[in-house]
């Protein structure tokens, strides 16, 4: 980092918004040597995702996923978080913006507050909790949620008794750290940053506007976000599903979809994209909590368009008995006295049905913040007519002002993975913009040399924390200290009010030096948040950071055994004894580093591959594109216009030109990968044309292919064409005649076994072509036969437009597909019209098939070569469907475009930029540090049975030149799967060795060591 070219560009970035999208952008940027300032108007980061219970389609706990990320952001040396803060003005140019930020008073000093929460316990004022959506209360001094980052409390001035009546100050008395400051005035700061990322997040539609649903009037009508809290184990009902009115367990639960969405008269005209899936998820989770529940989802169209979403909905139907009813609910009424709710709806045949439910959940849509237009003005960017930030289909994350980018729901409604993807995408864009300023404003921590412990007996110091009263009110801390202080190896033990406070760190360093300690045990809270802090402290005192162990006596003891002082104390003693037993056997571990080749290899020269390559090249890295065809461009060569009307071929031509003329990009066309070797930072690839490339990362952008239909006489009649062929005809100047009839059939080869997935592009393709036909000749007749029209997000506009200009939409069911027969040079198409409840016979001049996408046939061999798995449909499976949407489990390999799943052009570009952002993080480092906690392989014990080789998710065991199993520790994540499966016990994970674990078990059960 010492050879940076000086630059007028600033090496820092402002991220406005602390939700999951902002956090991703901040981490990617800070990890690649940019200083990040995060501005968040809430008292904690986290945004919307922290409120969710579980996430679709994997059912992972939302908080469990986001919490480690929040901790990472909170602890990052190069991320400054400004809370309760708002930007008031922005001046300057891309590369150097001057930003003024107003920070509201918190009334609690962050440097003193340890987050113990004693003040909160004492505060007498109860306020309806925003986080729990009004279903429970918080105090006037509070943190937003238990895992809040930072955990500094905040005083809600509008509700605080002292601020309102001048009396109380109980929090001040309760705070042993002296952190309360009623005189806090807030402040205004000025920052200079090179780029700005906007991710202010979303508001939810206020369903009270739709009075007929009775939200606020009928107590058993709740919003979907309230239901998330009801489902949550940490929510107001502790995960028990109860009705707000009487606490009874509901049996019949209804979800009403599109509340506030797809309604240009009363609400928002756009589709909120996520509600079909979250309602399905809520129905499934509700059933998992209580198998008596009978969920019904009332919907207009099932928009499960994402990767593996259709399969999830199928499972909801078949495995969980979720009933899907295609109906719009006109009103919800309460049955007097019971709290039950009467829903009235029209069945498919038009008959009105009244049905009683115990609980009704309104699937409310997403919308921009109320003040989003003002917000835009502050930053000098434009909004679209719906108050979302204005962006461009071919530049999906750029706003109208250069140097200012947008990610997440301010760009349009979207789910978590797409928000995360855009978070990395904006990071990629910023890296490309500010590339040369990398490392100019970041800091690195310096440590003293490590002490040599050779020949030393363990000298353990133990620090037992009161955590204010959190631990001390349940566990007798002094007794714990008394019991452990004479254990073998322990030379010092003491207790402290807050082990994590700044003065405790100084004290800890002093004890380590004065008592000549060589191992440290802290008994306090969870290692999840605090282990890195203590490790850093002992490292500062000259100890290897792995000579530390944390005994969790708060989350795993005092919090769950409140009121059982004696038993809790006993358990705390055991927990601490276990940690000491392990500490005796801890050894200093070396953290190796490996050099990084600052170059990338991109496989696939389609738009995804080219976009990634250009972004990385602009960031300053060399890029090799490997393309098996002779020409660049991939599938995009067959596309002429976007839904919004952009000229795709012109765009593609410009992109190819940019790629070919870029000084840091080399294109190997007509070539494939023949041999691959190496690991993150140091790959070596041999191509079929003999070239050898050295590179630090790999991006798989192998693309997809369009399905070639065999259905509906496609190969037998030239009157049966695909949407792509129709588009080509329209571009080449063909015009429809008056009265000429076009019938389009959707989902040809999609959404049924064996291709149970939505190809995402076909509804939009059909509508795009239908609108063009109508615009060319309004008298052309167009029928679109569909299963569900999936114009998600702001694309709903085009669906409405198509209907307005007279395109007919006729729904069909998968088990009653349209029947086509050839009649002369026309085509007779029979289908059922569910509105008329009659058979409809169409005489089409043209039958246009909306065929979906398939993974590229090469996906399989490429997948095998890089040991990356594929989903049942053959698309590459990312490392984590929510939080790592462009990564693979093996480090240094990324995915973009159709190789990952079907998606639209703008989404492909976003994902390609995201891959560039993630890859940029790796390439910006001169060296990669390898964790000390890796599996150690003993070749002398190994039988080369290949068990480890086969089960390792990171591909770190390998077969060496002698044909024996060997282990590459650089790839190892220390997960321990190999140690578990190895029949020869040839693997031991550092700091989790068998002898260490056995010592802990022995300490827990206090029996003699096993007879050997």
């Amino acid at each position, binding site marked *: 980092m010492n050879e940076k070219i000086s630059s007028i560009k600033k090496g820092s970035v402002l991220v406005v918004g602390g939700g999951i999208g902002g956090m991703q952008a901040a981490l990617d940027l800070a990890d690649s040597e940019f200083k990040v300032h995060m501005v968040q108007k809430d008292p904690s980061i986290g945004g919307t995702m922290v409120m969710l219970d579980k996430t679709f389609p994997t059912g992972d706990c939302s908080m469990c996923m986001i919490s480690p990320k929040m901790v990472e952001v909170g602890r990052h040396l190069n991320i400054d978080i400004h809370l309760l803060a708002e930007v008031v003005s922005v001046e300057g140019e891309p590369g150097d913006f001057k930003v003024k930020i107003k920070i509201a008073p918190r009334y609690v000093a962050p440097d003193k507050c340890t987050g113990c929460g004693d003040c909160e316990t004492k505060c007498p004022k109860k306020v309806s909790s925003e986080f729990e959506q009004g279903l429970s209360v918080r105090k006037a001094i509070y943190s937003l949620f238990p895992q809040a980052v930072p955990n500094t409390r905040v005083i809600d001035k509008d509700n605080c008794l002292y601020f309102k009546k001048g009396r109380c100050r109980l929090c001040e008395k309760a705070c042993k750290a002296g952190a309360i400051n009623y005189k806090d005035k807030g402040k205004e700061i000025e920052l200079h940053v090179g780029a700005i990322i906007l991710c202010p997040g979303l508001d939810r539609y206020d369903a009270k506007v739709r009075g007929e649903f009775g939200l606020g009037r009928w107590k058993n009508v709740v919003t979907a976000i309230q239901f998330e809290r009801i489902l949550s184990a940490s929510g107001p009902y502790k995960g028990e599903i109860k009705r707000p009115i009487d606490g009874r367990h509901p049996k019949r639960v209804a979800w009403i979809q599109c509340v506030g969405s797809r309604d240009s008269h009363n609400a928002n005209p756009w589709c909120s994209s996520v509600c079909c899936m979250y309602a399905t998820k809520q129905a499934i989770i509700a059933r998992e909590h209580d198998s008596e529940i009978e969920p019904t989802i009332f919907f207009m169209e099932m928009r499960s368009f994402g990767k593996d979403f259709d399969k999830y909905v199928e499972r909801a139907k078949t495995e969980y008995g979720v009933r899907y009813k295609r109906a719009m609910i006109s009103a919800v009424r309460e049955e007097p006295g019971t709290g039950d709710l009467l829903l009235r709806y029209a069945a498919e045949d038009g008959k009105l049905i009244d049905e009683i439910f115990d609980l009704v959940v309104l699937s409310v849509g997403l919308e921009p913040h109320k003040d989003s237009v003002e917000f835009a003005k502050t930053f000098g960017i434009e909004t679209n007519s719906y108050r979302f930030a204005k962006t461009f289909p071919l530049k999906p994350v750029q706003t109208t002002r250069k140097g200012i980018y947008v990610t997440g729901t301010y760009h349009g409604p979207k789910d978590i993975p797409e928000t995360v993807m855009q978070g990395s995408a904006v990071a990629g864009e910023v890296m490309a913009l500010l590339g040369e300023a990398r490392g100019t404003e970041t800091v690195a921590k310096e440590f003293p040399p490590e002490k040599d412990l050779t020949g030393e007996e363990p000298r353990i110091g133990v620090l037992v924390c009161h955590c204010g009263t959190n631990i001390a009110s349940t566990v007798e801390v002094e007794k714990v200290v008394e019991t452990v202080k004479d254990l073998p190896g322990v030379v010092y033990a003491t207790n402290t009010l807050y082990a994590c406070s700044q003065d405790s760190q100084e004290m800890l360093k002093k004890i380590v030096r004065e008592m000549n300690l060589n191992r440290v045990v802290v008994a306090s809270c969870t290692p999840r948040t605090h282990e890195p802090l203590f490790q850093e402290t002992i490292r500062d005192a000259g100890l290897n950071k792995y000579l530390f162990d944390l005994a969790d006596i708060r989350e795993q003891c005092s919090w769950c055994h409140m009121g059982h002082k004696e038993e809790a104390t006993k358990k705390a003693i055991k927990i601490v004894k276990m940690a000491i037993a392990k500490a005796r056997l801890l050894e200093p571990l070396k953290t190796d580093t490996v050099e990084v080749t600052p170059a990338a290899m991109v496989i696939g020269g389609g738009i995804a591959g080219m976009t990634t390559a250009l972004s990385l090249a602009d960031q300053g890295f060399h890029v090799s594109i490997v393309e098996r065809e002779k020409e660049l461009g991939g599938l995009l060569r067959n596309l002429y216009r976007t839904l919004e009307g952009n000229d795709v071929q012109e765009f593609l031509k410009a992109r190819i030109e940019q790629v070919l003329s870029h000084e840091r990009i080399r294109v190997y066309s007509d070539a494939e990968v023949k041999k691959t070797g190496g690991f993150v930072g140091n790959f070596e690839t041999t191509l079929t044309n003999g070239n050898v490339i050295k590179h630090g990362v790999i991006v798989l952008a192998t693309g997809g292919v369009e399905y070639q239909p065999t259905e509906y006489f496609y190969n037998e009649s030239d009157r049966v064409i695909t949407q792509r062929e129709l588009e080509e005809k329209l571009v080449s100047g063909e015009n429809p005649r008056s009265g000429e009839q076009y019938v389009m059939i959707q989902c040809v080869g999609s959404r049924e076994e064996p291709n149970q997935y939505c190809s995402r592009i076909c509804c939009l393709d059909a509508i795009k072509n239908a609108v063009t036909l109508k615009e060319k000749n309004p008298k052309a007749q167009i029928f679109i036969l569909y299963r569900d029209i999936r114009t998600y997000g702001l694309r709903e506009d085009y669906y409405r437009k198509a209907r307005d200009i007279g395109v007919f939409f006729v729904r069909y069911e998968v088990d009653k597909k349209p029947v086509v027969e050839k009649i002369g040079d026309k085509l007779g198409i029979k289908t059922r019209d569910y509105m008329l409840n009659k058979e409809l016979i169409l005489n089409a001049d043209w039958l246009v098939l909306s065929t979906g996408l398939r993974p590229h046939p090469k996906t399989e061999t490429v997948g095998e070569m890089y040991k990356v798995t594929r989903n049942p449909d053959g698309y590459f499976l990312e490392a984590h469907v929510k939080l790592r949407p462009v990564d693979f489990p093996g480090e240094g390999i990324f995915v973009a475009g159709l190789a990952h799943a079907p998606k639209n052009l703008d989404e492909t570009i976003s994902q390609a930029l995201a891959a560039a952002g993630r890859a940029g993080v790796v390439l910006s480092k001169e060296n990669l540090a390898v964790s000390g906690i890796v599996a150690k392989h003993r070749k002398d014990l190994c039988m080369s049975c*290949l068990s480890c080789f086969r089960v390792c998710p990171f591909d770190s065991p390998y077969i060496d030149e002698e044909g024996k199993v060997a282990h590459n520790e650089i790839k190892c994540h220390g997960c321990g799967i190999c140690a578990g499966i190895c029949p020869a016990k040839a693997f031991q994970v550092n700091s989790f060795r068998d002898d260490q674990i056995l010592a802990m078990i022995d300490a827990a059960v206090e029996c003699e060591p096993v007879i050997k």
Partner: protein
Amino acid sequence: MIIGKQKPFEEIWDMIKNFKKVLVFGCNTCVAICHAGGGKEAEILASMLRMRASLEGVEIEVKHAAIERHCEPEFFEPVMDNVRTSDMVLSLACGVGVNFLSERIGNIPVYPGINTEFYGAVPKAGIFTELCAGCGDCILHLTGGICPIARCAKSLMNGPCGGTNNGKCEISQDVDCAWYLILERMKKLGILEKMFEIQPLRDWSTGMYGGPRRIILDHIEEVEAQEERKGS
């Protein structure tokens, strides 16, 4: 490789429960690789047996040990004194090992802790498949490298039989028809016509139907014998 599978725990417990000093004895070759009877399994099983004994309130000392191979005497030598301190040995080696140790241990019983299953391959971690029957008269050159003796339920020499069903065997939809595989393989090798050659009646005495087998490599055996003569 010899594939084994640990016996049900109850069956093992019934074998050992009336003894006082038990040695769980693993073998670190074939059965270790199939996660059935290596040193690690011996350690785990010994621990489980100790737990069971203390739950049942009986006093049994259960120790564990393992050696490289149970089918050659030299590996036993360093541990035999230790082994003889037990009053029962639960062997996790294949049947060969149980026999071999029984012959050498005197009046201490050796019981099997695993069922010896077959000669097999490991196509994927945790999956073991039978591919050879050890019949003593290999015909794989006639059948495209796919063994009908081991892989056809009837060990037919001229197949397939009428029970072949879309590539599967009539005994189960999970079992491939070996003769279907042979046919497909021969097609691929371009020697399909060989299928029509009738194979004569087979002499099954080369396999275990002819009684226990023994192989002597004269040139090596002779050297050994000379060494022994010199010594005496």
